[in-house]
C-alpha cells in the first residue's frame, strides 16, 4: 500500500489548494496519519474512497480525542561573545508559550476490495469551546453515522452535514460532554426538577418567616 506521504502527494495533486499534512506516530506501531483541513475534507474523503489505487471503501473506526491546552517550552540557543576575550559561550534561552487545545476526530480506513489499510485521517477543530464543528464524513461512509453521533455526544464536536445528529449514549436532556478531559461529574446524575421543588420555592417567597432555613436545591 502507498505510504502516507505518497497519499498526501496524490491528494495535493488532485486538490492543489487543500491543506494536508502527515502527522508522525513515534510509537512502534508507526501508524502515521493524515491531517486534513476542514474545508475540503469531504471531497478528499470521497477521492480516497473512489481512487483506483486506494479504494478505501470501509471506514472501520471513528473516534474523538480531546487535547487540552498545553504549555510548550521553546528552546533557542544563542552564542554570546565573552567580553573578557575568552571563547564565546553557548546560552540556551527557554521561552514558555501556551499551545491552545483542540478536539480531534480520527478515522481509520481500510479497503475491503484491495485488502489493505489502515489509513488514518484526522480532522481538528480550532478550539475546545462548545460548538466546534468539523465536516461530517457520513455521506461518504455510512459507518460513520452512529460513531459520529457518539463523538458528538461524548466530546461535543458538531458534525456539519450529518443527517441525524442527536445524542446517542447519554440521554437527550444531558448537558455536558463526558469524554472531555476537563469534565466534572455532577453530584447526582439523577437529579431532576420536580414540582415539589417549585412548590417549596413558592412557599419560601410567600411566607419567608414560616419557611424553614433556606436549603437551596442543588443545581442540575
Amino acid at each position: 500500500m502507498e505510504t502516507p506521504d505518497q497519499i498526501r502527494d496524490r491528494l495535493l495533486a488532485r486538490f492543489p489548494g487543500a491543506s494536508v499534512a502527515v502527522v508522525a506516530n513515534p510509537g512502534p506501531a508507526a501508524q502515521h496519519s493524515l491531517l486534513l483541513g476542514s474545508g475540503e475534507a469531504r471531497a478528499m474523503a470521497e477521492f480516497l474512497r473512489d481512487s483506483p489505487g486506494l479504494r478505501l471503501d470501509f471506514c472501520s473506526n471513528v473516534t474523538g480525542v480531546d487535547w487540552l491546552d498545553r504549555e510548550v517550552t521553546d528552546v533557542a540557543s544563542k552564542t554570546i561573545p565573552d567580553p573578557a576575550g575568552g571563547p564565546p559561550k553557548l546560552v540556551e534561552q527557554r521561552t514558555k508559550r501556551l499551545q491552545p487545545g483542540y478536539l480531534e476526530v480520527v478515522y481509520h480506513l481500510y479497503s475491503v476490495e484491495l485488502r489493505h489499510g489502515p489509513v488514518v485521517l484526522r480532522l481538528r477543530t480550532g478550539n475546545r469551546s462548545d460548538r466546534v464543528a468539523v465536516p461530517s464524513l457520513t455521506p461518504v461512509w455510512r459507518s460513520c453515522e452512529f460513531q459520529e453521533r457518539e463523538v458528538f455526544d461524548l466530546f461535543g464536536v458538531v458534525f456539519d452535514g450529518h443527517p441525524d445528529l442527536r445524542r446517542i449514549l447519554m440521554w437527550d436532556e444531558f448537558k455536558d460532554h463526558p469524554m472531555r478531559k476537563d469534565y466534572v461529574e455532577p453530584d447526582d446524575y439523577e437529579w431532576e426538577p420536580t414540582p415539589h421543588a417549585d412548590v417549596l420555592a413558592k412557599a419560601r417567597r410567600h411566607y419567608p418567616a414560616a419557611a424553614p432555613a433556606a436549603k437551596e436545591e442543588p443545581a442540575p
Partner: protein
Amino acid sequence: MSFSLPSPLESAPGARVRAVRDPFHGDLLEVSMGPHHPSTHGVFRMNVTLDGETVVKLKPVFGYLHRNHEKIGENASYLGSMPYTDRLDYLCSMTNNWAYALAVERLSGQTVPERAEYLRVILAELTRLLNHTCFAGFILQDCGASGTPLMYAFREREKILDLFESLSGSRMMCNFQRFGGCRADATPEWLEAARALVDGYGEFEELLTGNEILMARTQGVGRLPAKLAVGAGITGPMLRASGVGYDLRKVDGYGVYPRLDFRVPVGADGDTYDRYMVRVLEMRESIKILRQALGTLPGGPVMDPKARLRGFRAKPGEVYSRIEGPKGEIGFFLISDGGPNPYRYRVRPPSFINLTVLEDLCLGHSIADTVVILGSIDIVLGEVDR
C-alpha cells in the same frame, strides 16, 4: 405526556408508506419496543413506526447500559482495564481480552511466546463456538420456539464455560490474557478435556439447520446487499453472509492463523437465513482450527519472561489494532503519552456498528420479522452501550 405521530414525509428514506390516514388503513402507529422487551437481548429500544403491521420507520435508542467504559479505561492503568474488557461483550470475554492485549503489545512493541499464541487461538475459537451456539439458541427463541432450543444451546455452552473456569477461574469474566502472553498455562488434562469437547461438538446443530419453521421465518427476510454492508462498516459473520469474504483472520493474519488451514464461509443472499448459516459453517471451521491447534500446540512458556505488567508504561505513540471477534471486528485504539494510563482508550464495538443498518433491514417487513432480524445481527448490550 404527549407525543406526536410523525407525518409520512418524515419516514426514513426508502420507506414506502402505502396508505396513510385513509379510512381503510387508519393512522400510523408508533410503538416503543423495549427497553424491557424479551426480544431485545437486553435493554435496547427501537422506536418503530408501523403502518398496520409493516415497519415504515425504525430508530434504535441506546445507552441504557452506558457506563462510559472509555473514560474508566483512561483513568485506569493499562493492566487495570483488562478485567473491564470482559464486560464489553460478556459472552466473549476471551476475544475481548485478546484484542486489548494485542493492542497494548503493538503499542509497546512486545512479542508473545509461541505457546501463548496457540493458546490464544484455541481460546478464541472456543469463544466463537460458544457465541455462535448461543446465537443459534437465541434466534430460535426469537422465532418463537420458546425455551427448548435455548436450553440445548446453553447446555453446549456450559461445557465450554467449564473449560474456561478450570483454566482461568471464572466462567464468563475470564480476565485471562496479559501483555506478553497468557496468565496461566493449560495442563495436559485440560487439553485432553478440550480435545474431547471438540470431538463431541455439533450434535445440537443437526436439530436446527433443516428446520422448516426456521427456514420459513428467515429466508428472504432482511436482505443486506454487499455494497451497503461494506459502506456501513458491517463486519463479521453478518458481512460474510452478504457475500463479502472479509475475515481478519485471513486478511490481517494475526496470531498463528496463517499457519492453520481453514476456509471462510460466505453467504449468497445476505438474508437472515444466510446470517444463521454462515455462523453454523463458521463453527465447523472453528472445530477444524481447534483440532489443528490442539494437535500442534508447542511447549515452552506462555508468558514472555521480560514482560512487565505492574507499572507498565508504553512509549508515546498510538495504535489501532483489531481482531476478528465472534460478532465482528473488535478493535482498540490506544494513545499513550508515556504515562501509566492510556491517554485515549477507545473500543470499536462490532455489534454497535452492525446496528447501523437495522432500519434498512427492517423496512417493509412485519414487526415480528423485526425481532428475528435483530436476533440475526447478534448484539450484546454490554458492548453496544459500553
